[in-house]
């Protein structure tokens, strides 16, 4: 016990080791891995991120143009960020706020929609040309 005395005395006269969490929030470090976000205008629904993800946090249904992200399965390992061929996944250096439920995030690729529209238009144009 006497050996512990300096630590006890020090604790009595120094500040708290903890903080009142929801009131006082410590800012994360500059490059702390917060969470990932998807850019709908860059994504092509290729599915590479879903293949690479070690925790099965991403599912891609290309036909329905639907990417589902499960944020509470994600371990922010950064694999998808580096694997994405169209650089559509960004690492955000802020922590995701805590939550009572585990919501899913659904993304729709505007780039894929645009690509499909243009290909459909091209196909129509080709078809009308052949008809003539």
């Amino acid at each position: 016990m006497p050996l512990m005395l300096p630590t006890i005395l020090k604790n009595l006269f120094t500040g708290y080791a903890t903080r009142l969490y929801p009131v006082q929030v410590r800012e994360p470090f500059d490059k702390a891995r917060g969470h990932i976000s998807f850019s709908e205008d860059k994504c092509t629904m290729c599915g590479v991120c879903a293949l690479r993800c070690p925790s099965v946090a991403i599912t891609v249904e290309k036909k329905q143009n639907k990417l589902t992200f499960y944020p509470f399965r994600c371990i922010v390992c950064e694999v998808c960020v580096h694997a994405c061929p169209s650089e559509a996944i960004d690492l955000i250096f802020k922590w995701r706020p805590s939550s009572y439920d585990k919501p899913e995030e659904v993304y729709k690729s505007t780039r894929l929609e645009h690509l499909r529209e243009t290909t459909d238009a091209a196909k129509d144009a080709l078809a009308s040309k052949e008809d003539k």
Partner: protein
Amino acid sequence: MEKLWPVELSPRTIYLRTFWAELARVHSHLLWLGLLADAFGFESMFLQFWRIRERVLDLLEMTAGHRVIPSVNVVGGVRRDITPEQKKVIIDTLDIIRKESDSLVKVVTNDYTVKARTVGVGVVTKEQAFALGCVGPVLRASGVSEDVRLTKYDAYGDLNYEPIVETAGDCYARTLVRARELFQSIDLLLEVLNKMPEGEIAVRVKGNPPANEAFVRKEAPRGELIYYAKGNGTRNLERMKIRTPTFANLPSLLVMLPGCQLADVPVIVLSIDPCICCMER
């Protein structure tokens, strides 16, 4: 994994990996010392150790982005680098960690209550430890000078390293080994930071893992960690096996537990630093 190709790593990558390995050792040993204090009912000591550990976790978050599992290693290199500003902060924080742990470790190693609960409890002799295939601090506390870092993998060849050995083989000896390793790891971290060469942090590795096999031994905080990987030229590996130190250390409980007091069971089981979730693979 790099042994499969094989890939030549840049010296900075090797040093960075050693840095994170040693930082993880500091964090793991502080966690263990706290848990040991908790196992024999010294709750305030437990929180004091975890308070220091929080500083190490902050350093990990600053350098790697995550607090416990760095996830910085990729095939061919690492993902993050240490900037000169970070280096300064790390050196200052390590100094604080050393001072704070020093006062607490003095309590653990000299206090009457701690000694009463650990000295002569769960004794494993040198022969028994060797025969049961113990690894890491458990083996070193029984007087066997065995450490994978002696094989000079990663940057350990350039560092001033020698294993810490105790001879008693009881819980107290295992505590001493880990407490002294804590300070040794801080010294190694400073040495790594001072000797770290400049250069690339990752090399680009192309293609699938070739049809080859690799066997790697590393010294994790709990002891010797073995990785075996076998590729067959396709995208997926044919076989991957990881043997964690707890798997090798568990049989030593066969010698430690029979005939002991029921109240000593938590201390003895904890003294091998078991991680059952790591072991089950």
